[in-house]
């Protein structure tokens, strides 16, 4: 059993590379950022379509639609006890851009670069910050960008004190924190555990539990065992079978939470070794060859729902139609009409559950229509390495929005500016100048309703015509000991809230 003042969470932490919010871009690290850092504004945890001011008290949109002025909340302090001031905000945002690590591209969406960010992010006085942006995007988009973890506000003085060789404290932040969130990092042991200590001076109020131990337990069966035996209070990422077995067991509660992750099959139209992949008829057939229902409701029961548009349910503008289902005869007919026989393809998948199971299901249904699928399981980096170099034929992948705005996803699936930008459409070698324009138009649109309408239009097009078979939206299944109360989790990867948990 776990001690009363410690919350033990069993999950996989193996993905964490960095706990510097300007660098960390993995599921587990962005989850942690929410507990450790705060941003100017964050999506409301009950209705993420709403924005809540956090470190900012309020903001004003500039008349030109290309600037925002934030008034900082008074009395907010960092874990070190220092008050948050405009200098921290400006320094943190500029730092994220100039450090230019993986998630910096999110801020780049505003047109900020290492060269120009200093003129676009300025402190008006100790309590006011003004930002401007050169790109043709609307202020609501800009606000959404600033809710991303990369825009977290750090204790500038503390971090600067740990600067080594001009790294802006990056090395130090790998293992430490300097934020204003409800918790601070007490100890981080890579691949082993992240220990968070309550930060009583947090602007949001002191959390209920004193310590959180997020324990790295790589194996799902062990996670389940730990929570069942009571050696963990919360177990994340449980497979369907594990959850099913725990159902109804005394002392345990199961949460099933939708996530913004969409899973899709990518067909690389640019692969010259296998020209059939460039044939839209083949794409069309593929849409009828996924056992959406079988995977979501039998094979991986509870961890997925059928979802066939790129914006996940719950994200503003999501399209909820599901026109496709498994229909082998129809797929065969389409293939026959297009003169496609004996097609074969290789399918890259991650070698971790549940991907091999999904891949084997695809293998079976495609096989039924005469398409031979050879599965190439690989570590995540291998699979990404192949898709990056565009040597893959097909891959089963998933997408999680980087920030809570439809553009995050739309610009990946429906935009291929052909300038070297590595969007998903570009990886599939899908040439769509018109659609790219439309996506650009949508992000610049300042009227929210019209913006939604544009995204619906784009999704409908992608659903029917792209070399993607968007199939499933993930649900996360979490098992908690029943004495754990107040746990909350939102749609997007970073929306994990421990501050109101009590036990």
């Amino acid at each position, binding site marked *: 059993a776990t001690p009363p003042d410690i919350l033990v969470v069993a999950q996989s932490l193996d993905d964490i590379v960095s706990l510097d919010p300007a660098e960390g871009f993995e599921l587990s690290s962005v989850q942690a950022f929410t507990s450790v850092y705060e941003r100017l504004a964050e999506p409301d945890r009950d209705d993420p379509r709403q924005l809540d001011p956090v470190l900012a008290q309020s903001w004003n949109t500039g008349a030109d639609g290309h600037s925002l002025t934030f008034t900082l909340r008074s009395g907010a302090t960092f874990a070190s006890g220092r008050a948050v001031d405009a200098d921290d905000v400006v320094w943190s945002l500029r730092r994220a851009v100039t450090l230019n690590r993986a998630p910096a591209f999110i801020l780049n969406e505003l047109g900020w670069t290492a060269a120009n960010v200093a003129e676009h992010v300025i402190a008006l006085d100790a309590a006011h910050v003004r930002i401007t942006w050169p790109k043709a995007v609307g202020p609501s988009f800009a606000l959404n960008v600033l809710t991303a973890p990369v825009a977290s506000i750090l204790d500038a003085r503390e971090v600067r004190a740990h600067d080594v060789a001009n790294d802006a404290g990056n090395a130090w932040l790998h293992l430490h924190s300097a934020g204003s969130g409800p918790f601070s990092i007490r100890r981080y042991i890579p691949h082993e555990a992240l220990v968070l200590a309550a930060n009583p001076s947090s602007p949001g109020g002191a959390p209920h539990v004193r310590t959180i131990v997020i324990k790295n337990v790589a*194996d*799902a*069966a062990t996670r*389940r*065992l730990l929570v*069942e035996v009571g050696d963990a209070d919360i177990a994340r990422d449980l*497979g369907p*079978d*594990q959850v099913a*077995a725990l159902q109804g067991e005394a002392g345990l509660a199961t949460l099933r939470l939708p996530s913004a992750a969409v899973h899709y099959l990518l067909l690389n139209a640019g692969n010259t070794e296998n020209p059939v992949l460039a044939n839209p008829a083949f794409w069309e057939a593929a849409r009828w060859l996924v*056992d959406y229902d*079988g995977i979501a409701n*039998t*094979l991986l029961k509870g961890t997925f729902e059928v979802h066939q548009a790129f914006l996940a349910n719950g994200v503003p503008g999501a399209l909820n139609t599901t026109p496709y289902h498994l229909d082998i005869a129809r797929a065969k007919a389409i293939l026959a009409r297009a003169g496609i026989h004996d097609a074969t393809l290789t399918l890259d998948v991650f*070698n*971790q*559950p549940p991907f*091999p*199971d999904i*891949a*084997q*299901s695809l*293998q*079976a249904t495609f096989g039924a229509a005469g398409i031979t699928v*050879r*599965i*190439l*399981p*690989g*570590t995540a980096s*291998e699979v990404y390495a192949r898709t990056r170099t565009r040597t893959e034929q097909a891959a089963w992948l998933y997408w999680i929005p980087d920030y809570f705005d439809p553009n995050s996803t739309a610009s990946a699936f429906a935009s291929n500016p052909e300038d070297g930008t590595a969007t998903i459409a570009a990886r599939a070698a899908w040439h769509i100048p018109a659609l790219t324009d439309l996506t650009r138009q949508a992000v610049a649109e300042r009227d929210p309703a019209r913006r939604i309408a544009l995204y619906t239009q784009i999704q409908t097009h992608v659903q029917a015509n792209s070399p993607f078979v968007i199939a499933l939206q993930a649900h996360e299944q979490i098992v908690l000991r029943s004495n754990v109360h107040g746990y909350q989790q939102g749609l997007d990867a970073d929306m994990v809230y421990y501050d109101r948990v009590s036990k």
Partner: protein
Amino acid sequence: MMRRIWRTSYGGRFALVVIVGVTLVACLAPRLAPYDPYAQQFAVRLMPPSSTHWLGTDGLGRDVLSRLMYGARPTLGLAVLVIALTVPIGLAIGIVAGYAGGWIERVLMRVTDIFMAFPRLVLALAFVGLLGPGLLNGALALVLTGWPAYARVSRAEIAALRRSDYLAAAEMQGITGFRLFWGHLLPICVPSARVRLALDLASIILAAAGLGFLGLGVRPPAAEWGTMVADGSKVIFDQWWLAAIPGLSIVVLSLAFNLLADALRDSTDPHHER
């Protein structure tokens, strides 16, 4: 030889039965297996053993018995491949070193020592990790670390004979070259190599299973015992047999090879041993 093992002990009998049986099953899997090992039926996922599926079904509703039968193939195949490479290399190097002596021996044995000191499983993991998953990459590492054992033993055996009277006697009769190697030197090393080989087979089977368990073995949907244990371990607390059955198969097969090694050791005529 077989007969002698059969007569020596119950262990030897068990070993022969299991090894011959598993080999047959592996060869005849397509004929023996009651189901297509790849056919998925989501409706009957995770069924306990029953009269329709003797060993139940796995997470994709595939028949476990059929997969078990097919699963013997990569394991045995790998073992045979590794042995086919390690034994000849090891014996050749050992015999040449032991017979030649001098600097040839020193150089060859230094190389042997280097490879001998490599951690076997770890190197296999590194190979697979760096060159990509697959039993073949693992096999490469097993070959690389496997031959020195044969080389060392055979060198010692031959070097002990280097100045022996019966090599001198062979020399007196003008027996040289390949004839000497094949007819006189090699047979000396065979009994110990045979025991070592049986032991090695057991350890290769375990290593292959270990790779499979870590998800670094065969590619799905191919069945392999280690991978089946890993898959089964996901549901070990509820459908324990899914991990237990392939695990037991590994135990039984490697046990058989270990017992064979024992029987070989015991049955080697003491008069034939030096």
